[in-house]
């Protein structure tokens, strides 16, 4: 029996919400104010909304519009987190809000939070650590599943249109990323670091699911980049997963994304070298999957520091010349600004204090200190495995010119599990343990990487809140103590707060319907929609 045949669809109401039109190519290129049509809101990854009904002068008038608690006992199967925690960013299109956890998609009325349908399906396994959300195009909703499938659902009912396998569950891959629609491509990434498997990004036909191209995150054997591995076998089993979010520049026709850590994860002694293209920012042609350029932000990582954090696109002036730029606040604690046409470094600097790098090379890459690789008797390292940043998305405001990141400064001890009888370490081969950390919201000057302002989160060891900037000079952020806060984006002063039942677990979004601007966030299993007075 096809799994799709037992798709459970619960239609709370066969209601088609009167909307403003479905998502097409033009809507993705220029998102309407009544929508949040993709993971990052638009292709730039800035998470900046032009809406200003709510602004720094009236934000105290925000009130609770609706809440919605997802009715699920948890993911349907497999390993990882068992609780129903919303770690994805909702997508809003045609008056409908789509929210996910692994193995579940809900469609809600974006005005009321009322459930329209809920789709779930049996799982064959895979890590159920989180799902980042859906992509929408036309009448189809796309979602990845932990058991390695890309599903296409009917946006009116949640009924499955088709499914296609995007990775091999038997090799311990799994899928958690939010797909990205670029023209006639559904671009998907994959996850998995239990065994030593290669990462890749691939594109599928939106109508049929047929695979169009696959780009592996390792060089072709025999190329100069392949010499960054000791052997072809190490390279072809070298990790570099693609579970972060991709961004897109239509003018350059390039997509940008970060790659994960190399494998074996902690024990890197049998993969000496830089290990390209792991821990890198990558630019690909979305039509062919061909590499345009790469920039490695974490050479020879041994700390599980993926570089999958959002590559945020914006334009700026450097040395008096207008430039198309890209910035990433990486998990390893470093902030990078690149020329996104060439991949050349503009700024490379720490955004929190770290202790693992000896400096920066002429190409702008941090130089790892070998003494801070995991050791048999422990090495004190900062940041810890969770990183100075992780999957919660950052934001950039073209109004302030500031890059915002919810950062953690953390220490832990990395141990290498040596086994003299095992000449070929695989899997992890070590881990970190313990630690101390503190969390802070940073507003980075993109010309220097230095903080224009910072706000230390008192009482929060870390935070898993993403960020949202708006044209109302607002920055929305959460701490680790259940506070959802609106800041003056330019000056960093908190202007409004709401105490939620738990800390934020995703990135805030905003959209405007019927003259009411909504700001929606998730805390564990509950969505909160805050609403402005009607304009």
């Amino acid at each position, binding site marked *: 029996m096809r799994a799709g045949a037992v798709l459970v669809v619960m239609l709370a109401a066969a209601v088609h919400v009167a909307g403003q039109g479905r998502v097409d190519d033009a809507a993705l290129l220029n998102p309407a104010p009544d929508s949040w049509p993709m993971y990052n809101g638009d292709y730039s990854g800035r998470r900046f909304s032009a809406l200003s009904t709510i602004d720094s002068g009236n934000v105290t008038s925000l009130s609770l519009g609706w809440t919605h608690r997802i009715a699920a006992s948890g993911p349907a199967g497999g390993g990882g987190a068992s609780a129903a925690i919303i770690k994805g960013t909702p997508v809003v299109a045609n008056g409908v809000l789509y929210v996910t956890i692994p193995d579940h998609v809900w469609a809600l009325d974006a005005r009321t939070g009322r459930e329209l349908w809920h789709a779930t399906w049996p799982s064959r396994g895979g*890590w159920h650590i989180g799902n980042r959300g859906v992509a929408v195009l036309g009448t189809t909703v796309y979602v990845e599943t932990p058991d390695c499938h890309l599903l296409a659902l009917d946006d009116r009912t949640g009924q499955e249109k088709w499914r296609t396998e995007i990775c091999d569950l038997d090799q311990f891959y799994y899928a958690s990323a939010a797909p990205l629609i670029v023209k006639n491509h559904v671009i998907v990434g994959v996850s998995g670091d239990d065994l030593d498997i290669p990462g890749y990004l691939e594109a599928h036909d939106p109508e049929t699911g047929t695979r169009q191209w696959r780009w592996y995150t390792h060089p072709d054997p025999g190329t100069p980049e392949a010499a960054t591995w000791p052997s072809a076998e190490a390279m072809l089993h070298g990790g570099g997963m693609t579970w972060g979010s991709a961004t897109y520049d239509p003018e350059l026709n390039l997509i940008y994304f970060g790659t994960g850590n190399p494998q074996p994860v902690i024990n890197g002694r049998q993969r000496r070298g830089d290990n390209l293209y792991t821990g890198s920012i990558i630019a690909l042609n979305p039509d062919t999957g061909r590499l345009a350029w790469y920039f490695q932000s974490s050479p020879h990582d041994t700390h599980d520091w993926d570089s999958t954090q959002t590559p945020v696109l914006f334009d700026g002036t450097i040395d008096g010349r207008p430039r198309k730029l890209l910035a990433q606040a990486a998990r390893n604690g470093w902030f990078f600004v690149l020329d996104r046409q060439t991949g050349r470094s503009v700024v490379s600097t720490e955004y929190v204090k770290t202790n693992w790098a000896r400096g920066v090379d002429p190409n702008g890459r941090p130089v790892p200190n070998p003494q801070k690789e995991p050791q048999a008797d*422990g090495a004190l390292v900062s940041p810890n495995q969770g990183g100075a940043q992780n999957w919660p998305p950052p934001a950039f405001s073209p109004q302030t010119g500031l890059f915002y990141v919810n950062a953690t400064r953390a220490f832990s*001890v990395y141990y290498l599990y040596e086994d003299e009888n095992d000449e070929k370490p695989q899997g992890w081969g070590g881990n970190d343990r313990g630690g101390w950390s503190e969390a802070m919201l940073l507003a980075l000057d993109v010309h220097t990487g230095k903080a224009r302002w910072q706000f230390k989160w008192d009482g929060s060891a870390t935070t898993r809140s993403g960020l949202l900037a708006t044209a109302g000079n607002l920055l929305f952020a959460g701490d680790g103590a259940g506070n959802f806060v609106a800041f003056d984006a330019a000056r960093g002063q908190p202007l409004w707060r709401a105490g939620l039942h738990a800390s934020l677990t995703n990135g805030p979004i905003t959209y405007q319907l019927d003259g009411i601007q909504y700001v929606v966030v998730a805390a564990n299993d509950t969505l909160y929609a805050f609403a402005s007075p009607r304009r």
Partner: protein
Amino acid sequence: MHALRLLCLGAITLLLPVTALAQGGPTDRPPLDQAAALRGKRLYAEHCINCHGSTAKGGPNGPDLIRSSVVLRDRLGSGIGPAMRATPVSHPAALTAEQILDLSHFLRERIEAVARNRTPRGPINVLTGNPEAGRVYFNAAGRCHTCHSPSGDFKGLRARISDALTLQQRFLFPTLTRSDKQVEVTVTPASGPAVSGRLMRIDNFSVSLRGADGEYRSFSRVPGVAVVVHDPLAVHHELLDEYTDEVIHDVVAYLWTLE
């Protein structure tokens, strides 16, 4: 060759059995039969080890079986049996279906061992430092002696800590759970006297405490309200930027001598 085989068998005998299963991967894999895996290990040592290596990760004449898609897709011999029969020159032994099943369980156990090796499979030895150097650091550069002493709060320290790894972790990342100390806070409202007590909770918008009289009090952190926190562990957090790994290992070696 036989000697090599015995040597390698000794090596794989050292591998600890895997009892818990990895959380990733497919859920349709049959349960792991430890007795069958043990029988499979003996079969592996007899028939497979020379080519596929002592840890099944490959050798000069045979591929890595942990990374083999045939093995990863195998269910109770469904993959490895046909694969071996299809290559009789390199797999000359005529294994029975039961033996192939046992081999399947053994290889499954090896895969599980790799998939779970983010968890240590043996003790971690952190006693690699110089105790005397650690004592000197304790009493000089580290300023540890200004708060702690071997004859005071650290008397009998080793007997109170289960192992040196735990000692290393507590040295670097201490908590107050076993201490008579506490985080103190003093809140001075816009009007009225300052209030002090044990910090219960703090964020940027509120603070709460329990006073010496046992009363719980909370305050909004609005303009005009001053909050001063005294955390006895703050100095430890600052030291994280100063410690070298050599110092860490020396201090742990010294503290472990405090019988």
